[in-house]
Each structure stands twice: as structure tokens, then as C-alpha cells.
């Protein structure tokens, strides 16, 4: 980090506390140049070395990847062996690395069929260095952002053992001012051909900021149509009014950490969840549960997490599973013990829901791109398009019918429907008659629905057809909203790490961080190479803890959470929230306390 020490001579964030947006505008282009990683100093390029191929392996493609030891650029091979997909690369200085890329080849090939690429960024940064050392975004980037992450703070009320990110461990407080945040949002809104429309305020724990409601308001003022707050929710358990204020300010949804239904699997916020849900109910603030999935730790509860989501479908809009991204240097045996990939998580869900949700019900994220193409063809305006790499994520929608879970794929022939939509878009682009094309599409919509299997509340008076007609043909966002209220979205997003890193995925990323120096950095470079991006940038804009405490008059330690287990588990709310999902009475108070303390949250 020599470069950063050099930079800190010229960058003193304390002096920027009173800066206005225009001051950030003029200063940041130079700062971002200084912060970019540099060849030879930070990394090397070894792309002339061809990756090794071995007998018994079926090569699918080659790609670029990184050395997990020195972050240098390497060529890698992606291949199939024994029903799984692997990635292998060799660094001339640190040897060979081999990793499972996707745990099921059949699903990999199915997903691969549905790749659509985006049209890129019209006002990019230059391509001065090789990808991924040039992130900002550059002209190589194939997708535009579907979601912008903005880190509001690195302070946190928890001290999870696996996290290296929070202020006390980092040694500084990173907390951009409101004016700085406005500048960052404007950077995202300036993007062409499409300004970013959706933002996630994240941390640390963003709810630790006293001005979190102001931040949401700023995002709305600057034109963000979707604002979500990524949180452990603990503050909301005790301050229901904050949920109301967040909703009133324009928060659309909470992205709520939720690693399991039991205290063992979710020691982060298991006990507070019932109260968080209640606060959000009162505020009409929807929730997406976000479980990080780790093999051998919580992968036995994936079905129960979905059942929990369905039980609370009045307020829970979706579950977005995130198979673990393995950070830091981890030996191969340990990686294999923890690693779970999208198809393996899907398989677990199939097993744990008695095949009510099977692997056939899932599709890759870019599967829905034809909808964007169709709306573009009608409106002649660029649309948000989820052109992420097919291996990055999966999704489906499920409906509840009495005690049954019905995935959307059971009553709509989605493949036929989306192929027809794509075909229709091409016809419209070629100048086909709009009304005849609509009529044909309507016919396809009708023929794609298996009415006998449609959930009853969508079957009566052909409600489903009306909804789909309004979504696809009238492109009515209210109809889309109504659709979402009737379903539970199930998603899966597997963020990469240094071992399975594929530059091809980076170049198609739809989730970006907006950084204080005015760059937009793909999620899997920002977090996977923190020494070049996340940590380097935030340290540069951070303030040493003691100085921060002096400036603010606050003590960072005072925000650490201490849990009152007895109080949280007593009463009906806790019991009602988990009833039918776990056997609450089988867990003693001392066990509850043990799980909390073991995780690092002290109890009182």
C-alpha cells in the first residue's frame, strides 16, 4: 500500500467535510487516477501462458482470471469433469489453482443457452490498463448497472468473526458526508445510455447513521426510482418509527440479512427478526431476505428459509440466496468444505421442499432480457436490461396455494413465452405492424398458460392473463408491482472470489459500487480485490477512529449491540413468527445465549 501512503499526503478527508458537490466534481478526477492499481507495482500480466489441459476433461472455454496470491492476470480454462464445471489457472510464481465453478454441468448448459449481452456504457472511462485493473466503468463493460451500491458507513453494531470490513478492524471510519453522497449518486445518474435507477444503501450497518433517512431522501431527489437499504435490521427491532420514516422517505425495500431460521444458523439477528418484521408491517416496508449460504453450516435450512418467507409473504417480497464467496487465503480442503455453488443450492432446495421447487424451475438472470428488448422495441428508448453473465445468478417466482408451493414455471411455459417475446421484438424493430404483432403476442401469452395449474386467485376471471397483458403489452409498472405482491421472488446471486474469478463475468456485471472518487466498480472487483478497490478507496477517504470520535463527539464502541435474549424470546411475537418452522421450546435460554455469544454478540 505504498501508493496509498503517498496519496494520503494529498487527501485529507477531514478537510472535505464541508465540501459541496461542485468541490467533489473538480477534485475527484485526479484522485481516482491516483487510486487506480498500476502494473508491476500492484500486479503483473501473464496472459501469454496457456492454461494446462488434462485427459478426461472437456474444455468449454478459456477466460482470464486472477492469481489468488498476487492478483496478477492469468489465463484460465473452464472445463467439465464428472458432471461438474471447474476453472483452473496457473501463476508462474504461485502455482496452479483449481476450483469448482458450477456444481452441475447439466444446469450449466441449460443456463448458458439464455445469455444476452448488453450494449455497454456510452460515456466510459478509458481502457488504459487490462481488465479488471481499470474499473470505473470502462468501455469494455457490456452491461449497464441494474443496481448501484453505495457504502454509507463502515461502522457496524456487530463484530462478526468473519468480517474484516467494519471500522474497528479497518482502523478508520469511512462515512461520506451527505454532499459527498449526493455527488456519488449524481455520478451514477450521469451514466449513458441509461442513468442508474436503483440504489442500495449499504455498509457496515447503514442504519447506524443518524442521517440515514436523509440519505434515502437524497437518492430519491436525485432521481433513483428504487431505493433499498441493506441491513441487519437490529435498530428497526427497537425503533419501529424508523421503519416508517424510511418508508416515507422513499425506501422501497429492506435487503435484510437472514442466514437461517434457527438461532444456530442465524446468530446475527434471529431473535430480532420477529420485531423487525413487525416494524416493517406497520410501515408497509417490504423485505427481501438475504441468506449467505455456506456448505455444512446453513445449507440444510434453505427449504425452511423459503417456507419462512412464504409464511410472512404479507411483508416478505423475496429471498435472495447468496452462495458464499470465499475471501482471503483459504486452503483447498477448507474451500471444498465451505463451497456451495448455485446448482448445488438449487438441488438442496429441491430436496428440502419435496420437489415442490425443482431445479427445472430456475432460470438464469438474463433469461428476462427479452422483456427489456420488447419494451425497447415499443418505446424506442433504452431500458434496464439484466444482461449479467448467466453463471452469476438464478431466479424463479413461487406462489402459495393452501399448503402447496407452486413455481411460476408449472403453469406458464416460460421458455416458449420468452422466445416468442424476443422474436416479437425483432419483428417490431424490423417495422412490423404493432397491432398485428400485439395480437400474435397475446395469442402466445394465452397458449403459454396451463390454466388447470394456475393458483386459484390468479385463475378466477383470467386474472393472470390480464396481469400479463398489462405487464407485457401495456408495460404497466403497477401491474408488475401487483404481480410481485402476489408472489415470492426467489433469487440466487453467487458473487465471485479469487479462486473462481472469471473476468468474463466481471465484464457483464450489473451490480456496481459507486465510489467516493466517482467511479462505478463491478461488485466482484470491488470486493474480490479489496486492496485495489474497496479498502484502498475507503481508506483514502477514511478518518482514523480517534480523530473521528474527536470530531463527532461519539464513541464507536457505544454502538455495539448487546442482546437481551430473555426479553426477545418472551411473548407471542417471537413464538408466532417461527411457529411451524422451528421447535422453539426445544431450545433453552442458555443455548440461545451460547449461540449469540459464540457468534460474537454479547448478551445481557
Amino acid at each position, binding site marked *: 500500500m505504498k501508493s496509498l501512503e503517498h496519496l494520503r499526503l494529498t487527501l485529507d478527508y477531514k478537510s472535505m467535510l464541508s465540501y459541496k458537490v461542485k468541490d467533489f466534481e473538480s477534485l475527484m478526477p485526479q484522485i481516482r487516477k491516483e487510486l487506480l492499481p498500476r502494473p508491476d507495482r500492484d500486479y503483473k500480466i501473464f*496472459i501469454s501462458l496457456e492454461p494446462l489441459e488434462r485427459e478426461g476433461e472437456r474444455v468449454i472455454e478459456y477466460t482470464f482470471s486472477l492469481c489468488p496470491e498476487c492478483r496478477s492476470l492469468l489465463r484460465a480454462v473452464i472445463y467439465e469433469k464428472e458432471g461438474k464445471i471447474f476453472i483452473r489457472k496457473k501463476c508462474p510464481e504461485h502455482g496452479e489453482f483449481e476450483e469448482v465453478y458450477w456444481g452441475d454441468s447439466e444446469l450449466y448448459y441449460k443456463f448458458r443457452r439464455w*445469455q444476452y*449481452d448488453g450494449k455497454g456504457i456510452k460515456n466510459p472511462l478509458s481502457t488504459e490498463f*487490462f481488465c479488471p485493473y481499470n474499473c470505473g466503468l470502462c468501455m469494455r463493460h*457490456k452491461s449497464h448497472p441494474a443496481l448501484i451500491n453505495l457504502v454509507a458507513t463502515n461502522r457496524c453494531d456487530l463484530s462478526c468473526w468473519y468480517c474484516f470490513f467494519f471500522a474497528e478492524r479497518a482502523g478508520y471510519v469511512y462515512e461520506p458526508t451527505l454532499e459527498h453522497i449526493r455527488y456519488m449518486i449524481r455520478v451514477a445518474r450521469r451514466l449513458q445510455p441509461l442513468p442508474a435507477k436503483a440504489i442500495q444503501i449499504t455498509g457496515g450497518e447503514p442504519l447506524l447513521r443518524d442521517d440515514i433517512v436523509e440519505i434515502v431522501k437524497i437518492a430519491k431527489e436525485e432521481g433513483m426510482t428504487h431505493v433499498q437499504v441493506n441491513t441487519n435490521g437490529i435498530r428497526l427491532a427497537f425503533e419501529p418509527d424508523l421503519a416508517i420514516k424510511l418508508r416515507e422517505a422513499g425506501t422501497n425495500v429492506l435487503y435484510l440479512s437472514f442466514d437461517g431460521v434457527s438461532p444456530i444458523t442465524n446468530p446475527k439477528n434471529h431473535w430480532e427478526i420477529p420485531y423487525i418484521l413487525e416494524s416493517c408491517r406497520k410501515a408497509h416496508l417490504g423485505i427481501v431476505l438475504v441468506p449467505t449460504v455456506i456448505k455444512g453450516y446453513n445449507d440444510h435450512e434453505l427449504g425452511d428459509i423459503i417456507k419462512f418467507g412464504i409464511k410472512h409473504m404479507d411483508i416478505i417480497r423475496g429471498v435472495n440466496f447468496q452462495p458464499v464467496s470465499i475471501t482471503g487465503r483459504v486452503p483447498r480442503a477448507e474451500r471444498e468444505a465451505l463451497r456451495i455453488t448455485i446448482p448445488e443450492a438449487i438441488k438442496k432446495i429441491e430436496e428440502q421442499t419435496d420437489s415442490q421447487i425443482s431445479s427445472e424451475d430456475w432460470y438464469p438472470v438474463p433469461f428476462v432480457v427479452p422483456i427489456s428488448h420488447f419494451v425497447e422495441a415499443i418505446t424506442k428508448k433504452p431500458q434496464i436490461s439484466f444482461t449479467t453473465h448467466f453463471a452469476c445468478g438464478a431466479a424463479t417466482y413461487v406462489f402459495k396455494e393452501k399448503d402447496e408451493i407452486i413455481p411460476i414455471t408449472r403453469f406458464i411455459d416460460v421458455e416458449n413465452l420468452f422466445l416468442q417475446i424476443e422474436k416479437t421484438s425483432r419483428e417490431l424493430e424490423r417495422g412490423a405492424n404493432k397491432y398485428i404483432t400485439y395480437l400474435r403476442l397475446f395469442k402466445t401469452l394465452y397458449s403459454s398458460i396451463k390454466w388447470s395449474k394456475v393458483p386459484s386467485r390468479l385463475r378466477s376471471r383470467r386474472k393472470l392473463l390480464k396481469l400479463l397483458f398489462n405487464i407485457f403489452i401495456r408495460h404497466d409498472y403497477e401491474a408488475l408491482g401487483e404481480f410481485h405482491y402476489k408472489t415470492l421472488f426467489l433469487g440466487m446471486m453467487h458473487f465471485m472470489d479469487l479462486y473462481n474469478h472469471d473476468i*468474463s463475468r466481471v465484464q457483464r456485471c450489473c451490480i456496481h459500487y459507486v465510489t467516493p472518487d466517482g467511479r462505478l466498480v463491478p461488485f466482484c472487483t470491488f470486493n474480490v480485490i479489496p486492496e485495489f478497490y474497496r479498502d484502498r478507496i475507503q481508506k483514502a477517504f477514511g478518518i482514523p477512529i480517534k480523530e473521528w470520535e474527536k470530531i463527532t463527539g461519539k464513541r464507536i464502541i457505544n454502538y455495539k449491540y448487546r442482546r437481551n435474549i430473555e426479553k426477545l424470546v418472551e411473548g407471542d411475537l417471537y413464538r408466532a413468527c417461527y411457529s411451524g418452522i422451528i421447535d422453539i421450546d426445544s431450545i433453552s435460554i442458555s443455548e440461545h445465549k451460547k449461540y449469540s455469544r459464540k457468534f460474537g454478540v454479547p448478551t445481557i
Partner: protein
Amino acid sequence: MNKKNFKELYFNSYFVATQLTIPQKENIVIRPLSVKGVTEEHEEIELTKIAESDLTLDDYLDLEARLVKTIFVTLTDIFHGTPRLRKYVYKVPPSITEIIEVIEVRRENNEEKITRYKLVYNITTIINLVKVIRLN
């Protein structure tokens, strides 16, 4: 891009043959058809190829910038296959103010599509790609 030297200036053109794999499998061959220099008097002169070689790291970046601007294909895309790459070096006389390179892009999936592009470079202290025109 090549740094302008007051004595000698060189222009690189590239040959690429590879297989793209996503969003779909596709064979692709990119080759230069002609490289001309334009003088201040707007006279077009065929430039002379003086050498042929493998690519250096700087060449990879140079090639990628052109590919991205022309057909939105990155270096990672062309390395999904096993690319055959060559660099052709042209000498640029001091009288030249602009370079026009015409390239042919052959893409073959189920059917073969051939597209030609005119790439216009201006010469300041370096050679800059300033315009890409699709010819067919």
C-alpha cells in the same frame, strides 16, 4: 497506440482468428484489407508493411480498444477461444496527418456474415482512433 517519434512513426494493424463462446459460439476472423495514409493535401497513399510479429502487452491493449469500439468485443471474448493473432507494422511517412484502415470482420455461426469497417485515425503526438464507419 504508437508514440509519435519525430524521425519515425509506425502504425499497427492486426489479424485475429478465434472462436467467441458467449453469448453464442461464433467463429470470427478479423483482417486488414487496406491501410492508407492521408496527407495534408488530402492525397491517399498506400502505406508500406515493413514487419509482421506477435503481439506485445501494449499491442493487446491497442487491439482491444479497437475491437471494443468497432464490434464491442473484448480481449477476454477473443481469448475464450484459442486466438491466432498477428501484428502488421506499417511505416508512416512524416507527411501523413490521418490514417484510414479498412478491416473485414467475418463472423460465422449458422451462416457467415462479412462486414467491413473503415477506421479513421488522426495523428497528434500519438495515433488516435477517432471514427469507425460501417461500410456494408
